[in-house]
């Protein structure tokens, strides 16, 4: 039976350790655990903070759709996705993906797939606030992101 993914969209920080324990504690069938954490970087000292806007309701729904596709595609024993919104300072967490499986390949690939689709499909938008104080600027999409997501389509 397919596992039901855990999806959370929240302002507060998350604890990657606690989330990995949630997928492993009390079980002996998990042989591989891949954790990806996306953090806010300071862009060589120029960034004061990121502001993450999201579409409440759709953000959770879209992350759930992507996560359900991942559990349908790979034999996972657990999958968790947490995405934060609001103002996030350099060094702070933005997003967490934890994929657990009996074997490493499924866990690596599911986590990679999830991040690629999250970037192009989940309704979140980043605005950069610079140290220099010039108002906020919306982050542009990277051409590479669409290409990364396209890797998972059958050719």
């Amino acid at each position, binding site marked *: 039976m397919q596992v039901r993914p855990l999806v959370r969209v929240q302002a507060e920080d998350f604890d990657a350790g606690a989330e990995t324990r949630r997928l492993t504690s009390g079980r002996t069938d998990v042989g591989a655990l891949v954790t990806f954490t996306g953090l806010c970087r300071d862009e060589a000292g120029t960034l004061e903070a990121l502001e993450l806007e999201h579409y409440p309701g759709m953000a959770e729904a879209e992350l759930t759709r992507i996560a359900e596709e991942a559990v349908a595609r790979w034999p996972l024993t657990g999958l968790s996705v947490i995405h934060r919104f609001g103002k996030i300072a350099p060094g702070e967490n933005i997003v967490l993906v934890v994929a657990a499986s009996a074997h490493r390949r499924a866990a690596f690939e599911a986590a990679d797939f999830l*991040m690629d689709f999250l970037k192009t499909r989940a*309704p979140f938008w980043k605005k950069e606030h610079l140290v220099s104080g010039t108002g906020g600027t919306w982050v542009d*999409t990277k051409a590479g992101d669409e290409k990364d997501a396209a890797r998972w389509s059958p050719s």
Partner: protein
Amino acid sequence: MNIRYFAWVRERVGIEEETIEVPGGVKTVADLISHLKTLDDNHAAAFEEEDAIRVALDQLHVETDTDLGDAREVAFFPPMTGG
């Protein structure tokens, strides 16, 4: 119909959300965009780069040639930049 805007689309329109009466001739998302552009300068500016706008109908991604059907909520926003 309830319309929601996000990120720079929201900033250009100047509001987060509005409810509009959809005129009879408006069938698809593209028709709705054409109609919204006629409302005022802010809407016209928001939809100026139409190719840069993404659409969700009742919180599902759709293309602009999609029929509005019975959708209750349409959202317009730029390409996503989360993660």
